[in-house]
């Protein structure tokens, strides 16, 4: 069946089977390999993308369910030479080690900051609890979110 998805702002058409999962379409069909396959069953958050601005787990979404909607992946955020403030903050705060979890964390952070521009530490931890990191120990990630919130607020 033919579906149309707006991927990082650009509409694209795909011909997919009913059992195609959004994550496989994003990674293998669109060659956007930022979103990662971790557990495949909803527990790690490495596959987090935004669907109409809300964070979802692409490993459990049927591609059909994205038909006619907006999908945002890490590739839509910034370029190597012009990073998004959230990406900058993650690098500056040492919130990235192996990097496997990072695209998921950054997308969850984007969803969080669009809902609440200045979240408390408790709110950050609660919002990001669906994202697992085996390297950083989370402290630097929380700092990165706080720093991104400050950057995006701007001076004053």
């Amino acid at each position, binding site marked *: *069946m033919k579906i149309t998805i707006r991927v990082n702002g650009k509409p694209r058409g795909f011909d997919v089977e009913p059992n195609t999962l959004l994550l496989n379409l994003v990674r293998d069909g669109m060659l956007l390999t930022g979103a990662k396959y971790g557990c*495949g069953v909803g527990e790690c958050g490495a596959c987090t993308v935004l669907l109409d601005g809300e964070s979802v787990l692409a490993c459990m979404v049927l591609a059909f369910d994205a038909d006619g909607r907006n999908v945002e992946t890490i590739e839509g955020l910034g370029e190597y030479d012009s990073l998004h403030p959230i990406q900058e903050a993650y690098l500056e705060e040492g919130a990235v080690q192996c990097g496997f979890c990072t695209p998921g964390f950054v997308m969850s952070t984007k969803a969080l900051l669009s809902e609440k521009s200045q979240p408390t530490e408790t709110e950050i931890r609660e919002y990001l609890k669906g994202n697992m990191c085996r390297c950083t120990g989370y402290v630097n990630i929380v700092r990165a979110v706080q720093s991104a919130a400050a950057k995006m607020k701007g001076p004053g």
Partner: protein
Amino acid sequence: MSINTHNTHIVNGFAYHAPTSVAEATKLLDEHGVEASILAGGTDLVPKMKQAILKPKHVVNLKHIPELAGVREEAEQIRIGALTRLRDLERSIIVTEKLPLIHEAITAIGSVQIRNMATVGGNLCNASPAADSAQALVALGAKANIAGPKCERSIELESFFTGPGRTVLGRGELLASLTLPYPEEGSRGAFIKLGRTSLDLATVSIAVNAKMKKETVESIRVVMGAVAPTPLRLRNVEQSLAKKKLTVDAIEEAGKLVSESIKPITDIRGTAEYRRVASKGLAMEALTRILDGSRRDK
């Protein structure tokens, strides 16, 4: 199958249906019977399909039926569509203002991503004894409204569950909505969940809803999760508390009775003994919160 060793794909193919009305959906479900699975948010169904625990030949997606989603105030009751996403439910002003117990139970479910996808109907129809929305909804006296190919019926949500993973839904039927009475004056609730991690299903959970007159219980519902094959309403505990003043002793007594009244099992999440001890503590904590709340009201 080797392609799927890490749950990366749904290996089995299926025919996909996206009905836009309840009549169309029940007709499809009736036609395909046990070969069909309903898809709501997919957070329970899709992992089962990936692991080939379920291999439906037909998947009926209910997300394109607008009347099945949303929270509405009606004259005598509040209606929650079965396809309402958990995130929409927890953010609904009707829920935060009139049904805070539901808000408390729903925000304890999974992660933000899971709640952005999952629906309340899926949580109930999956019929896990640990499903977090069930205890709170039963404590508030919810009715389950079921649509079928020939007729509609309404039953107490309490009798909706028949065992782990099993409900009263018959061929062609789907859960359409839940209806709840408006909470009475002096109504207070508490929901508490113990899990191994903050993302896990409950090891044991409790929802209590009480109508209080100052510090005295007028009427009360006590519902436990993950201690029986279905969400468990403890009528004997409810009766022992009715018309009683909530004192420290009464609360201790009730906690003991809760622990004696459940029939927990040992599984990967905890031992029967742990559940017995923990349920006493949970019940005491829930009743204490209700008492503190009604003291603040004066």
